[in-house]
């Protein structure tokens, strides 16, 4: 029995000279990931990866089919037209928004693209299943298992990514969505998926397309239910994990089609995506399980004594803050999630320029997980043309806070919570924070007294050297800049 003939009746063979083209593609991908470890070579790495992709796609057209002719020779006009049409629409539909989209909206764009990838994998596996079923064939066990796994993981990635996109685009509430018995419901669906998968695999030729469709529906539901209990601020980790999922499912699709490009590309992304997810969790001092299942970010009724201990925060108007800033010599700006959401980076740059004109030394303190994704804040500030010399990382800026006159915290919360240094009961204990409380005066610009995504009160707000300035980061910064004109 020929495995190939069963796997791909009218299609492709396995391992011939054309696989050498896939090898070139794979080498490009690996080289690209290696180069992406450093900011100097990262951009070049991405280009090399793109070249590898062109190779992989191009080789597919000249891939010999079982008849021995290249794939492109045997193509019927309709198939060719659909293929090129979908490809062209995909190029325009991917490149145009990709160029136009605002930097602040990048995270949801990545989520959406990842979801489409997952959807593509699920469709490929669905095709293979229906195709085999139509021919009344039973695929060999490995391919059957791979088909089922890739459709489950790909579909979950598709629906989960769409939810992540919805949360980041604020089409859905960013807060964790929790309901009673949620975990039980998820467990039941997961169990149903396992049972259905086994029925399909054991059923062999008898396995119906209906069962397979129910399997897809269940996986779709599990993807949604798995992501909605997670808070908006944790979405980067979720997207990274779903990215890894899509990679793994593409790898399984490689078994289905016996295609080395999919095997290698999928395996690479599945593994590196997982490592990247864990790195992100480490940067937040959280475990992956905590991110996925703890429902962090839900508003909790504070148990035990409040961090505020009866003290009330002092509230300043933007004009008061302007006076404070105009009398300072050294100012540090701490941009956070709130500033990214308000898209206030250009206003912040304007204010910083004004301060610099007044002879005030301005620095930016960028926490590793500031913004909506790790490293996202650097990208946002770079977009607003903030000079790179003014950006300081956590280790560089912390020793400098004690000689700073005014720290302006813009929509950051957990990353400046002093409780992370000493309060072992705090969910953020041990997370490296910016020691802004060491400065003479701390101005916190926030929309209200609400908690950050970790759901804990921040005692910094009631410190003697802290003043609050309520309002959205954008409005507050604009008002401060206007008020500064007077000085």
């Amino acid at each position, binding site marked *: 029995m020929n495995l190939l003939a069963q796997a791909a009746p009218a299609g492709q063979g396995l391992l011939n000279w054309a696989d050498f083209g896939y090898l070139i593609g794979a080498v490009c991908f690996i080289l690209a990931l290696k180069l992406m470890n450093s900011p100097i070579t990262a951009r070049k790495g991405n280009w090399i990866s793109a070249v590898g992709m062109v190779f992989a796609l191009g080789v597919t057209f000249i891939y010999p089919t079982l008849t021995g002719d290249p794939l492109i020779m045997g193509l019927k006009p309709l198939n060719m037209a659909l293929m090129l049409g979908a490809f062209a629409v995909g190029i325009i*539909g991917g490149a145009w928004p*990709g160029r136009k989209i605002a*930097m602040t909206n990048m995270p949801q764009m990545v989520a959406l693209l990842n979801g489409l990838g997952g959807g593509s994998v699920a*469709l490929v596996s669905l095709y293979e299943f*229906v195709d085999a079923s139509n021919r009344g064939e039973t695929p060999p066990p490995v391919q059957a298992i791979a088909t089922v796994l890739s459709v489950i993981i790909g579909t979950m990635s598709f629906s989960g990514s769409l939810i992540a996109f919805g949360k980041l685009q604020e089409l859905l509430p960013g807060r964790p969505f929790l309901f009673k018995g949620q975990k039980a419901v998820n467990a039941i669906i997961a169990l149903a998926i396992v049972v259905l998968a086994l029925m399909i695999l054991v059923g062999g030729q008898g396995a119906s397309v209906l069962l397979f469709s129910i399997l897809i529906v269940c996986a779709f539901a599990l993807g949604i239910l798995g992501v909605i209990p997670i808070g908006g601020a944790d979405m980067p980790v979720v997207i990274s994990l779903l990215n890894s999922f899509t990679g793994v499912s*593409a790898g399984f699709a490689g078994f289905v089609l016996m295609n080395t490009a999919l*095997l290698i590309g999928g395996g690479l992304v599945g593994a590196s995506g997982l490592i990247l997810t864990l790195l992100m969790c480490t940067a937040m001092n959280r475990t992956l399980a905590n991110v996925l299942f703890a429902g962090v970010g839900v508003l909790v009724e504070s148990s035990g004594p409040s961090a505020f201990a009866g003290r009330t925060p002092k509230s300043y108007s933007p004009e008061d803050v302007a006076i404070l800033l105009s009398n300072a010599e050294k100012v540090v700006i701490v941009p956070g999630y709130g500033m990214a959401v308000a898209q206030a980076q250009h206003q912040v740059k304007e204010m910083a320029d004004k301060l610099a004109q007044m002879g005030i030394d301005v620095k930016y303190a960028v926490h590793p997980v500031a913004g909506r*994704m790790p490293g996202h804040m650097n990208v946002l500030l770079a977009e607003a043309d903030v000079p790179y010399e003014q950006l300081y990382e956590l280790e560089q800026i912390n020793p400098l806070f004690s000689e700073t006159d005014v720290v302006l915290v813009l929509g950051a919360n957990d990353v400046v919570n002093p409780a992370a240094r000493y309060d072992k009961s705090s969910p953020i204990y041990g997370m490296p924070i910016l020691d802004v409380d060491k400065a003479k005066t701390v101005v916190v610009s926030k929309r209200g007294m609400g908690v950050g995504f970790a759901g804990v009160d921040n005692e910094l707000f009631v410190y003697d050297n802290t003043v609050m300035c309520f309002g959205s980061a954008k409005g507050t910064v604009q008002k401060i800049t206007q008020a500064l004109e007077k000085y």
Partner: protein
Amino acid sequence: MNDTLLLILVVTIFILAIFVGLEVIAKVPATLHTPLMSATNAIHGVIVVGGFLILARAEALPMYIIGTLAVLFGTLNVVGGYVVTDRMLEMFKTKKRSITK
């Protein structure tokens, strides 16, 4: 090539690819986490290859639809992924201090 050998071969390729994936991401600075996620996101768009292969042998209407959507979704993933990643990394080009560090 007999079936068992073939199976061993593809499993070997997959497992080795996973190991390379685990090793190739080492100490990435936090600033690169987002671009790197986006770059790997583009790479799994290689599923377009699968989309091409299935659409090439589609013969009935439902199969045409499934195949066309697979190619469309995959292409959006690939092209959007590379464009977005490049735009993020474009931001790093003038940053001299990060280069000397």
